[in-house]
């Protein structure tokens, strides 16, 4: 059993301690916005926030996330209002297939918390998520737009 706090709610979860956080979130809690893409922390589709930091949940055991504040894409909007990153994503029509975008948005939200006005170099260094549709040009525009919102 593990006890996880996800988007402010507490969940008792019946998994082995080495189960990746990603699969606990998706299959035990039922929040499927966080995606599986590689399972080896390469692509970033599974990015969530743990105590405000962007973390690739596919490679983190549940045991390491106990007692911490976990935020998923479902918990990013507050009180029905989209997070400024989500809003910029809508304004700039960023997603194509959209599968990687939850992870991308979570990575960007963490970046903006750390660096409210990131430079292109900051973006290049921090945002390393894979997007096979190739939305990067719109992602960069939308990051700057969100930073200036």
């Amino acid at each position: 059993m593990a006890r996880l706090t996800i988007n402010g709610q507490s969940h008792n979860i019946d998994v082995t301690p080495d189960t990746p956080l990603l699969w606990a979130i998706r299959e035990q809690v039922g929040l499927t916005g966080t995606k599986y893409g590689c399972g080896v922390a390469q692509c970033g589709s599974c990015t969530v926030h743990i105590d405000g930091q962007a973390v690739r949940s596919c490679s983190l055991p549940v045991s390491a996330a106990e007692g911490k504040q976990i935020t998923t894409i479902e918990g990013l909007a507050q009180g029905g209002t989209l997070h400024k990153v989500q809003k910029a994503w809508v304004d700039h029509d960023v997603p194509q297939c959209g599968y990687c975008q939850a992870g991308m948005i979570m990575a960007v939200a963490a970046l903006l918390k750390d660096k409210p006005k990131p430079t292109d170099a900051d973006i290049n260094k921090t945002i390393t998520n894979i997007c096979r549709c190739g939305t990067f040009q719109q992602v960069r525009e939308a990051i700057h737009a969100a930073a200036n919102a």
Partner: protein
Amino acid sequence: MKHIPQVDRRTFVVGAAAVGGGLALGLDIPFGGPKVVRAQDGSPEITAWIVIRPDDTVVIRVARSEMGQGTITGLAQLVAEELECDWSKVTTEYPTPGQSVARKRIWGDFSTGGSRGIRMSHEYVRKGGATARMMLIQAAANEWKVPAGECTAANSVITHTPSGRKTTFGKVAEAAAKLEQPKEVALKDPKTWKIAGTSVKRLDTADKVTGKQVYGFDLKLPGMLNAAIKDCPVTGGKVKSFDAAKVASMKGVKKVVQVGDTAVAVVADTFWQAKTALDALPIVWDEGDNAKVSSATIAKWLEEGLTAEQGFVGNQNGDAKAALAGAAKKIEAVYAYPYQNHACMEPMNATARYTADKCEVWVPTQDGEASFAAVLAASGLPADKCEVYKINLGGGFGRRGAFQDYVTQAVLIAKQVPGTPVKLLWTREEDMLHGRFHPVMQCKLVGAFDASNNLTGLHMRLSGQSILANVRPAIVEQQKGRDPLVFQGVADAGEHAFGYSVPNLLIDHAMRNPHILPGFWRGVNINQNCIFMECFMDELAQAVGQDELEFRRKLMAKHPRNLGVLNAVAERIGWGKPAPQGVHRGLAHMKAFNSYVAAAAEISVEGGGNKIKIHRIVAATDPGYAVNPAQIDRQVAGSFVYGLSALFYQECTVKDGRMVEENFDTYDSMRIAEMPKVESIIMPIGGSDPWGGVGEPTICVAAPAVLNAYFKATGKRIRSFPLKNHKIAMTA
């Protein structure tokens, strides 16, 4: 290119005849009038493409699949344009393949590949919209007892011009649905478009930024179990044995099943439990003779084909061999292109529920009808007992259209747990091992010049794998062994016609088909053909000391649309003018999927050529008509990410008959840091030529433009790929 299997078409015809019409949708037959077909909520269909609800909501049916390319938005724009409806009231839905079969394929082709979503259906979907508009106007005119010719429709409102009376689509929809469809339907002049041709926002963004969008991976059904699968890593191999008892008592495990002759799956409460048990399951494979094959043995076989006597001709005029024999100067080069995996962000998956009376499948698919055919074949049930529900795709790129192996697997698993829905998910590793790979190809090019440095002959010999020989053998048989698709971009005519006039030309193909399963990979054969031809064009120009653009122009007088896009990028990049210090330029162009595309790249190099920075790529597209320019921009920029990732990083290596690379750590994909600035020029010429596609064409021009610039920067001509094998990487 046609992705619908002929055999499947026959199945559909039989299926449609067997089940008759109106199976899936409610029908009511008003006295004396045509049948009204109703959507599930009871709202009437005006035409098969359009349902209008009493609150004026317009539901537009889209048969093609949305996989990020924006097709549902673009197709809805075309329907809405002719319908004259309020764009803010538009929503879309997918008809199911089962419904389509039952209604004699009323929605036409579901296949969403070959950049065909819009270009192959624009006419009939626009007619669907125009027909509905005429019926709605007629219904209003009937109510008002005035001639329909005195009424107009705009923004979902019908107006009787002389009296100024108004009504809305929602109010007359019921009456309109009962009318006969008009036979003569005229389409608007695209010059008068108000919705089509504009950069309206996509219709499907909202749920993609909140995590609400349900992909195949995310599906939840009551009582559903999850499955993980391992197929024999060597294609052609089989399952010899497996020891189910070893994992039967593991947490959550429900069943260990063999899937066909080649695969084993574990069914469990959760996917993670299924995968954990599968990893612990002892499986013995009979890998067969293919286990002896490696990349080196394949390369050797293809190399032999470069000079083999026999080749299938794709494009020919004059006598190339004589021209080469009599040349004052000959230039020769050999290129090679590797296997590549689609690596969609969402790995393959499908969910199936099987009973003796019904087999249902939920699947992210590029071709609902191909999925349907796979369900029929795997379930053994007739068409009226099968159904497929399409779910949005986490990427497609050609992997999820003609190939429905995951659907077959899901049904075969579900048959072993009847009545229970089973969601089959592939791991990334399974996805990488069991792709339908971009085929391998080598190419030998020889150009002949006379004493005055005029190009007098060209021979392009392709040697490598045919996709159609594996996927559509009937077409290859019909062509007496030839695969016409191999010549995309260099063909003698058609949507992939060669963009040069060269005297004494021969382009031919020595077909060599290794056991690795080939597939349609975004752009398909234009990827390598454009590198081969457009890099060699630079080699030819440089051999005779001519400007690369001028050299091309001399061969393009009869190819005005190719020339149009090439000139556009040359002008925008500043070809012929000095580049910034250390910056070098390259060009490429091609006709693909009936669009004309060109690119010009600016790069600089560091580390003795081991690092390439791509500063900008200017891309021009002439698709004939542009339905949503903003989405075309995104397809162009996205195609460069896909194409440049392939150029720099991606190769699937064959060792012991199986693929070596199993995840993104060894099969990399470019990140935002490496993304060049892409400047897109959209220059639709209009006219009556067939429309071009935009999902794929530009993918092919980025790589040769960058390679040609790299030669300018370093004097090194790279002829085998990916560039990582030459220790060359992209840099920010």
